[in-house]
């Protein structure tokens, strides 16, 4: 990896995080005038996590205030918000947002305390938002199915119900980790959180057994079930399993439910690398090409590549960590990162598929124009949505970990 370039990308990533936080506290998913000029709790949470790793604690706090103040009456955090914190969703429930907000709030709380936790931790902030935390946990548990002890969702990290409707791994790990974070915060405040802890333990156990295939030696993507209250779920009209590979199957370690050197994680990541590393462009794809939703052309995603780099850093595999992070550094354009990268051929194939199937939305016209106008097009590459803030936050996190560990 080119360390000088990596340092510049890190510095610019910090700049990008700072410049894409609205004065009200929300982090845009992509800058105003581009594809996602709204605040998506999933992206927003990772941006906050990026801030924490970069030491931007005031920005992290402001981001948390924004999202915590925007909670819906039932305790849900929406799919997306406008800059004033009004719900601006256009998709169904994405419950991983609840887990993520709690998870990063816990990280913020931990980080404010550091080595002098009792004296330094921002306890007042957690106390101020305790009711919000309670409602967020309650909302997660409202969506728990008592037959399998997992959280039901319609969308998850890919916003793709065809493969995520049911008991999906990323959403479950995020929610479980979120409850654990709430438990930790509650304990510091002296609250009785034993019931939450018990529930988190039950969900974790279910993730590690029902969402893991011993014969495949891999976590699986989803138990597909239409209705959260289906009982028995075996009679649900969707009842099936999604066993395909997905970068999100790394979630149990990403959300710290189990360690990276756990054999379940090791073998899952091996499978992810084998099946999703892009042999033509490099980088990590998010799911198999045949899932058929490859807006802008099938290709590797910068933030998933960074996420998996964390695994190799954790298990001391510097070569692989360099391979992953080095790819991100090499693909940055003027030290900015896109959502994902494709080739002209794959881009045109996607366009043909969607045009023929008549599923090309009007909103994709701008995406198409932007990709073709981007300077990388002349190099044969399709840069889709650049910059996206999420990969910059993930790069900050993984590069910081890399630097701390290996240098």
């Amino acid at each position: 990896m080119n360390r000088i370039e990596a340092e510049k990308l890190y510095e610019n990533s910090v700049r990008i995080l700072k410049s894409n936080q609205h004065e009200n506290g929300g982090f845009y998913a992509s800058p105003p005038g581009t594809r996602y000029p709204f605040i998506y709790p999933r992206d927003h949470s990772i941006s906050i996590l990026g801030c924490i790793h970069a030491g931007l604690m005031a920005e992290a706090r402001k981001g948390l205030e924004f999202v915590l103040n925007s909670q819906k009456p039932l305790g849900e955090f929406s799919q997306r918000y406008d800059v004033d914190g009004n719900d601006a969703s256009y998709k169904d429930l994405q419950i991983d947002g609840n887990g993520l907000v709690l998870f990063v709030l816990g990280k913020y709380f931990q980080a404010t305390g550091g080595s002098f936790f009792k004296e330094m931790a921002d306890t007042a902030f957690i106390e101020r938002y305790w009711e919000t935390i309670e409602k967020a946990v309650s909302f997660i548990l409202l969506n728990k199915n008592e037959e399998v002890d997992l959280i039901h969702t319609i969308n998850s990290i890919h916003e793709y119900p065809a493969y995520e409707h049911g008991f999906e791994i990323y959403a479950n790990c995020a929610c479980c980790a979120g409850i654990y974070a709430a438990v930790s915060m509650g304990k510091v405040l002296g609250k009785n959180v034993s019931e939450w802890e018990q529930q988190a333990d039950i969900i974790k156990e279910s993730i590690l057994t029902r969402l893991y295939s011993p014969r495949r030696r891999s976590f699986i993507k989803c138990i597909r079930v239409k209705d959260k209250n289906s009982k028995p779920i075996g009679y649900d009209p969707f009842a099936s399993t999604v066993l395909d590979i997905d970068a999100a199957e790394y979630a149990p370690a990403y959300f710290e439910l189990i360690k990276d050197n756990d054999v379940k994680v090791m073998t899952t990541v091996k499978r992810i690398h084998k099946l999703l590393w892009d042999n033509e462009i490099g980088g990590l794809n998010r799911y198999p090409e045949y899932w058929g939703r490859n807006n802008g052309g099938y290709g590797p995603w910068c933030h998933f590549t960074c996420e998996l780099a964390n695994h190799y850093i954790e298990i001391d595999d510097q070569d692989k960590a360099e391979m992953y992070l080095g790819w991100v550094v090499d693909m940055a354009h003027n030290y900015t990162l896109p959502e994902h990268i494709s080739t002209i051929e794959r881009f045109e194939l996607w366009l043909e598929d969607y045009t023929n199937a008549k599923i090309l939305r009007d909103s994709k016209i701008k995406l198409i124009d932007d990709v073709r106008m981007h300077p990388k097009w002349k190099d044969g590459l399709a840069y889709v949505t650049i910059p996206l803030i999420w990969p910059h936050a993930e790069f900050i996190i993984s590069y910081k970990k890399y630097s701390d560990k290996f240098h």
Partner: protein
Amino acid sequence: MIRLENMFPQAFLVGVVKMVDKDGPLETIRWLQEIGEELATLEGPGFEGARENSINYLPICPFGSEITEFIEIYGYPAEFNDIVNKMYELKNASDKPWKYPALTHVMGVLQHSYSTKRAALAGAELYNLGSKSPKGEFKQYNEEALEKAGMAKEVIEELLERSFYVYKIVHPDKE
């Protein structure tokens, strides 16, 4: 086709027809509005759908499939027309006609009360500038809302080519 597991939307629409027969269109309108407002309060402030500056629009038609399927099975009930006509009667008699929906079907009453209540919770007003029927065969405009929003009909007509409902978000405190 009805199966027990998917009969709820059809049952609700039959209920609307029965309610008009029993209590008349005005009572039914009020009932639908109350449902919309109640659900909006549970969901909280917000503006569902796509957004371009202060224009909010819905690229898909809420209840569109259910209404279409219902009409395919039962035909178009006269009671639905009673509701739509009563709504326009109320609008014409109102001194704030811009607050009414550009109605293309009966469930627009529920949707409008839900959407405007959520906007109100966000401290805003929502003007329904134009709508397209679930199958796209006709469009309706609220002329007074267009005037109040200072928007040309042609602009909304163009937006309705790729959507079913177009709203203007107005923040009284920011005007």
